[in-house]
């Protein structure tokens, strides 16, 4: 089950991250997971929110460049070697990860990670076969 991530183009300028967060917050959109990739002159903000359709409309209406990306959120055992065990499986099945980051909250005692795969569909098949729990959009809305 894929979930939707929103990516936002941000120049390295003072207050731009605040602009995005206050825009979303002011309109009742809650950010569940967040990461920023940065370069010398710009960054890409990646977020998972509870209302992605509303969020992307808000952003675009306010002149931000923002896109949807399919990502997968996975539960990972929250103990030493937990992430490594998942990565081992993925690696053995030639699944390439572009980037990943963590959720703030969790459902259970397990950590929650967002993964962006090179081939999302293939990655999902592998995860399903290995019976790794994948988080749904509904789960996220309920967080």
């Amino acid at each position, binding site marked *: 089950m894929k979930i939707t*991530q929103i*990516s936002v*183009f*941000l*120049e390295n300028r003072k207050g*731009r991250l605040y602009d995005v967060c206050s825009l979303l917050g002011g309109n009742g959109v809650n950010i569940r997971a967040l990461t920023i*990739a940065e*370069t010398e*002159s*710009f960054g*890409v903000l*990646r977020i998972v929110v509870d209302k992605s359709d509303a969020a992307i409309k808000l952003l*675009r209406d306010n*002149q*931000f*460049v*923002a*896109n949807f*990306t399919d990502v997968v959120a996975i539960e990972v055992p929250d103990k030493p070697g937990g992430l490594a065990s998942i990565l081992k499986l993925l690696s053995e099945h030639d699944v390439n990860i*572009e*980037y990943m980051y963590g959720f703030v909250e969790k459902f259970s005692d397990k950590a929650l990670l967002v993964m*962006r795969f090179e081939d999302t569909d293939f990655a999902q098949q592998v995860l399903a076969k290995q019976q790794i729990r994948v988080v749904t959009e509904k789960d996220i809305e309920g967080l």
Partner: protein
Amino acid sequence: MIWKENVECAAPADLRELQSGYLKKLIPYIYQNCAVYRQKLDAAGVKPDSVKSIDDIKRLPITTKEDMRDNYPYGLFSTPQDRITEIHVSSGTTGNPTLVGYTKDDVKLWGDVMARAFCCAGAEPGDTIQIAYGYGLFTGGLGAHYGALEMGLRILPTSSGQTARQLKLMQDFKPRIIACTPSYVLYMAEQAKEMGIDPTKGNWKIGVFGAEPWSESMRREIEAAWNMLATDIYGLSEIIGPGVAQECHHKDGLHVFSDVFYPEIVDPKTGREVREGEDGELVITTLTKQGIPLIRYGTRDIVSMTHEKCRCGRTSPRISKIKGRTDDMIVVRGINVFPSQIEHVLVGIEGTQPHYQIIVDRQAHHLDEVEVLVEVEQRFFSDEIKRLNELGKKIKKEIENVLSIGVKVTLVEPKTIARSEGKAKRIVDKRTL
């Protein structure tokens, strides 16, 4: 020393007589040999044999950069190709470059005017000159070379770049003259200091600097850094290359070699001559060129002009330093840059009218740098940094291919490039000239 005293110091009436004689021969020559000009002259209602004196020049049609471009490559030639001995090319606004062809006599003329320029700057026969303008399709290097050859200077043809070697050769051969772009000589001063060479004790005593606009404050900086006389040279490849006008040691305007390059200053809007001393577009007629003689070529450079005799004894009219341009061209490190060139590249990559801005800045180390800001559009945005970097690199590479100079490409958010009256400002020139 004045290289061609008989013309450079001629009485105004004698000079006009000389110019009239040249123009009287030039117009029938062009009319007979160049179909494009024949049409232009016919359209202007000018009968070639009606041109009898230099005053008739005002009746002749203006030639524009577009004429050069539209008739690329051979349309404006007045000479069969087998008589052309040298070809130079500079970047044009779109697509076609600007091409100029020289006959053997044209190259001789070039050597003559450049010899006059070096003398005007203060060179004496027997001096050594280091020519650090680029040799090649760019007219700077070879034009200076021909002049130095004509004058009997000892030439160090170092071309541009390889600064450490430039400085070593300066120390080893002690050339009194340096010819290069003004930004490069300042850059070399910094490099010299880093190498432990004191530039104020450098060997260069006279600089002939051109191919890009520069200011009085930059002159002071160069003169202080190198303890030398820094003079300004003006030229453009369409006319001949360097060697159209040159400052003498009084540094009070550039002497135009007006017996062969007839200058007029016109209002760029009306095409009418402005009053003495007023700013306008410099328009030049090549009175004696054979390969591509040009009638009233609009240089798009804004200058003022005076006919007052100079303290050096020369009577030729003097133009001011370039005060601006009538178009949006900028000159960076001797290369002409047009926003339309960058626009073409972006349209090619993105398939759409892009929003961009060109920022030119002169950095602390004195070399001009070009940054191109490109607004990221929804369609090209990716959550992956590597894809955005690839896009930036692709834009950079293609712009560099077109311009032949290095640029920095920065992706920016939409609507961040300032728009005035709905139209984006395409060029921000931060250089303090």
